[in-house]
């Protein structure tokens, strides 16, 4: 009896990259670099809720 097999190595399975949106102008590296450049600026936009809001939440919890 002859054994047959199929190599899995050359099968055209979809990869994550195949479904990435493509733009003709910008490369992934450019976008990544830009993100690195603005990360600090984005971080500085972070805000905390007022202490009063936190206290109301904690008071609600204690009231149960």
């Amino acid at each position, binding site marked *: 009896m002859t054994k047959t097999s199929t190599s899995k190595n050359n099968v055209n399975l979809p990869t*994550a990259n195949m*479904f*990435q*949106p493509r*733009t003709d102008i*910008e490369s*992934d590296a*450019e*976008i990544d670099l*830009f*993100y690195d450049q*603005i*990360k600090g*600026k*984005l971080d*500085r*936009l*972070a*805000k*905390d*809720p*007022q202490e009063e*809001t*936190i206290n*109301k*939440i*904690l008071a*609600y*919890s*204690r009231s*149960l």
Partner: protein
Amino acid sequence: MNLQSYNDQDLVKVYIAGNENGLQELLKRHKSKIYTSIYLLVKDQYLAEDIFQDAFIKVINTLRSGRYNEEGKFLPWVMRIAHNLVIDYFRREKRTPIITSADGMDVFNMLHFYDESAEDKMLRDQTHKDLKALIHLLPDEQKEVLLMRHYADLSFKEIADLTDVSINTALGRMRYALSNLRKMLKTKEMTYKG
């Protein structure tokens, strides 16, 4: 008891067991991530405070009633609750999202209000304020992914689950959000310098 070294799941257990400090530590740990994501979506401090509070009241009620699924992670779960409350708000207000082309170019055309002369120093000083304004100009679905990824630190899998899209769609939206921000910043700089 030093709760700072506890992970979120342990803090949830501590809280469910009756120790209020568990909730306090969870709030301290995640308040900024959750609040910033809400605030940058609704653009109103008071509304963001209300939604943040409502989200945690739902969290408390769920934890106290024993309905919390311990398999899920705490932060993505709270973000889902907050996200749903934001959607509810927009539905109530009947505010429709900005319609854009696939790459968000319509947003790109909304920059007319930057047509003012300015010095280079002003450009630097304004960057902080401008970046916030530009984030607000992004299409809702792109803004959402950017905020969840950057501020809430969610994985693309978690974002995809939360917004009912595929991981690749979430990845694509993040990419478009960054690409559009980059284009808008470039345009703004040209306007200032021009």
